[in-house]
């Protein structure tokens, strides 16, 4: 085994070359951090934007609209101009303590170390297996990311007549990819009672003449080599069998948090991403995280701004010295699904990277949402909340020194 880079050390190693990682790396350089190393396992920067040929990227950060691949090239050019050292084709296989990473590259394996590590490995869609979808397991069952990789990188199609599952914003993008590249979806189904995307996006399938069923689930997939037909159960309980040659599973993003999950740091059960404090710092004060890894999933632009904010906080942390105070966990009640940040640490930066708590609900719920700091209610709002929609609650001044932080929810108030 050779170790082609055993002695390499940097001020900061950023893992993940999507919008969040690149923005963080550039911000670190802008704030005078000398040696910033950006690793990505893919051959090009851009992360998930690389295969998104249709979403507009770059409006806020670069004041113009890019398609995915071009956006990735712009990120690489900007990062290089900022003096970030780029290494593509580098896979981090283990996150160790003490600011060390075990890394694989085409040249071999080795250990990289840095004063701080920032992980921004993004998110991916939940596959068929983890959704426990019943039936046979033939070819043709893929996610949006996979479909868009087929189209964007290889000029191929995995199916011609898929059933689309999901109704998030990405589901509409998936439908568009199908329609523009020679696939005619047989239907689109959403297991929940409502479309998850907001209007007018939610109207898109019917406008395109694709039947759209809410409250519908897959009950069987049949097919020997490829998908041949899928049986769904409609909201009224009646079954319907659709002849098709694929199933396109869209959305249900989950953080790509394996590095944390397999380290001693673990992940937050609500978000499935790493637990971080208001500056993006994890339980290990040398390890930071930002972007869609924290809580799948926001837009590329959101991830970019979040990465930049964590980059700024990390630069201040380097200037001031490691912040190792024991964090206070943020508690929450169902049906709240996640809160980011889920830790608060005293004595950190004056202006935190995260000015707001980000909350999401596990299901649609009406009621009164409130925040208690040391048992005292400091914020409350009544309303109706939808799943997968962001709720922002300002982190109150002084909350970082609290002994207890808790979000409550009272249904129907």
């Amino acid at each position: 085994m050779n170790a082609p880079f055993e002695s390499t050390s940097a001020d900061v190693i950023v893992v993940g070359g999507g919008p969040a990682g690149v923005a963080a790396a550039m911000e670190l350089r802008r704030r005078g951090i000398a040696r910033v190393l950006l690793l990505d396992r893919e051959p090009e920067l851009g992360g998930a934007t690389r295969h998104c040929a249709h979403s507009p990227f770059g409006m806020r950060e670069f004041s113009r609209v890019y398609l995915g691949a071009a956006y990735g090239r712009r990120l690489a050019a900007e990062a290089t101009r900022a003096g970030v050292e780029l290494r593509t084709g580098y896979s981090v296989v283990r996150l160790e303590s003490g600011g060390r990473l075990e890394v694989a590259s085409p040249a071999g394996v080795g250990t990289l170390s840095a004063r701080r590590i920032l992980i921004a490995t993004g998110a991916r869609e939940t596959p068929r297996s983890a959704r426990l979808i019943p039936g046979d397991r033939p070819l043709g069952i893929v996610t949006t990311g996979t479909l868009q990789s087929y189209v964007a990188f290889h000029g191929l199609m995995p199916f011609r007549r898929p059933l689309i599952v999901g109704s998030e914003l990405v589901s509409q993008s998936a439908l568009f990819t199908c329609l523009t590249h020679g696939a005619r979806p047989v239907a689109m189904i959403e297991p929940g009672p409502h479309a998850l995307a907001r209007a007018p996006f939610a109207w898109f399938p019917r406008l395109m003449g694709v039947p759209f069923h809410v409250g519908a689930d897959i009950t069987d997939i049949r097919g020997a080599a490829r998908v041949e037909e899928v049986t769904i159960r409609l909201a009224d309980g009646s079954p319907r069998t659709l002849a098709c040659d694929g199933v396109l599973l869209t959305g249900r993003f989950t953080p790509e948090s394996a590095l944390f999950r397999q380290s001693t740091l673990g992940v937050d059960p609500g978000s499935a991403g790493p637990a971080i404090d208001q500056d993006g710092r994890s339980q290990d004060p040398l390890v930071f995280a930002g972007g869609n890894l924290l809580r799948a999933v926001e837009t590329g632009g959101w991830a970019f701004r979040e990465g930049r904010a964590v980059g700024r906080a990390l630069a201040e942390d380097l200037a001031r010295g490691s912040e190792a105070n024991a964090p206070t966990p943020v508690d929450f009640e169902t049906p709240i699904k996640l809160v980011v940040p889920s830790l608060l640490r005293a004595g950190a930066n004056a202006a935190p990277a995260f000015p707001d708590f980000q909350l999401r609900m596990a299901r649609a719920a009406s009621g009164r949402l409130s925040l208690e700091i040391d048992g005292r209610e400091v914020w409350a709002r009544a309303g109706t909340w939808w799943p997968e929609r962001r709720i922002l609650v300002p982190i109150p001044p002084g909350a970082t020194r609290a002994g207890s932080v808790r979000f409550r929810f009272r249904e129907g108030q």
Partner: protein
Amino acid sequence: MLHTPSPPFAGQYDLAVIGAGVVGCAVARRFALAGAKVVVIEKGADILSGASKANSAILHTGFDAPPGSLELELVKAGRAEYLAIRESLGLPLVETGALVCAWNAAEADKLDAIAAQGRANGIEELRLLSGAEARATMPGLAERLVAAIEVAGEHIIDPWTAPLAYLTQAVALGAHLLRDAELIEGRFDGDWTLTTSTGTLRAAAVVNAAGLYGDVVDARLGFEPDFEIRPRKGQFVVLDKAAFAHLPRIVLPVPTEITKGVVVCPTAFGNVLIGPTAEEQEDRTRATVETGALEALLARGAEIVPALAGIPVTAVYAGLRPATESKAYRVIARADRRAITLGGIRSTGLSAALGLAGHALRLHEGFGLPATAPATPPTLCLPNLTETRERDWQRPDHGEIVCHCELVTRREIEATFDSPVPPGDFGGLRRRTRAGMGRCQGFYCNARLAEMTKGRLKEPLAVGEREE
């Protein structure tokens, strides 16, 4: 390149093996080593495409096999041979040991009898443990554990590379593998004429290792079937590698009359497996997963090892075991027709395969055919896919990592297509390389694999080019 059937062989084969499951692959190897000219007739596009693709990957000791049974003898013989040859083939063995766990008083009452049977079966490395003692060896077990038997010799292996190695050795000795070749009819006129969906061939003897179709193949060979396959479905859940740290040992339940029960077990690839279910069914082709059964397996796993709750699912699968109306192996030798049936080989088939192959050779010796000259085992070393040894990504110049979850390299994928038994379908590629087997199930690599495997698999991943 799309795999093509081996070049036609003008002469007569010494042996035709019907079915390229784990038993068929082991039989092909054993007879090739004995000097026989072997042909393997496989209905699927690839080997291991029936019952053998889905199992628990345990190398059993036989401690719980029926005393005095052929199954016990062959499990022990198969295990012994696996241990003897595995180093030379580069096959892994993860020495986990197993705990047979009793979760209530009624189950605990059965442990003495299980231990006594194990010892009667010749397995000495058994220890009766209190719940606390068992938990000391594996702290992740739920506190309500009452008692357990430790079976030190139960280990885990790579269930797909091992049979591939057997067949690869046979092919290196000149054996032919015919794929997409379903046996239609066999006629015996002093020798066998076997009609398959891709042609006719002649062989002096046949071994029926057709697994789920063992009874059908016996009938097509002109025999009155002595048994009837009654498929028993087993569903499995594979958990993320984060689960592995909680499961250093195989956790077996106290078995019932029907089944060995749900096992929670580490895999050689660094995951954790929960399964199988045991569901009788008529259909021999459909091995569906069902949401409710998978949820029940997840709940069962978390009952046994609470830390497994909340660890994400990596994969789910289901297989059919070729059960029959009786528990025993259905091994039948018909000397007058030079035919051997290896039927009804259920859960223990992976462990017993090499034993079954040796047994078949001994039965064949009674057929009075002229002896052949034994061959020297060809040396070969199958690529390691397990986390307990060095993987290809750890060596330089592997090209690139194509599958990030399982760290599969371009060099590994290219090498498998250049190997003596290249993959015939995507399942075969996955089993040979682990590409697409990880937590994202192809989110990142499936499109790249579609491109890399263009024209090389019977059923391509892509249906065609995109249109604008």
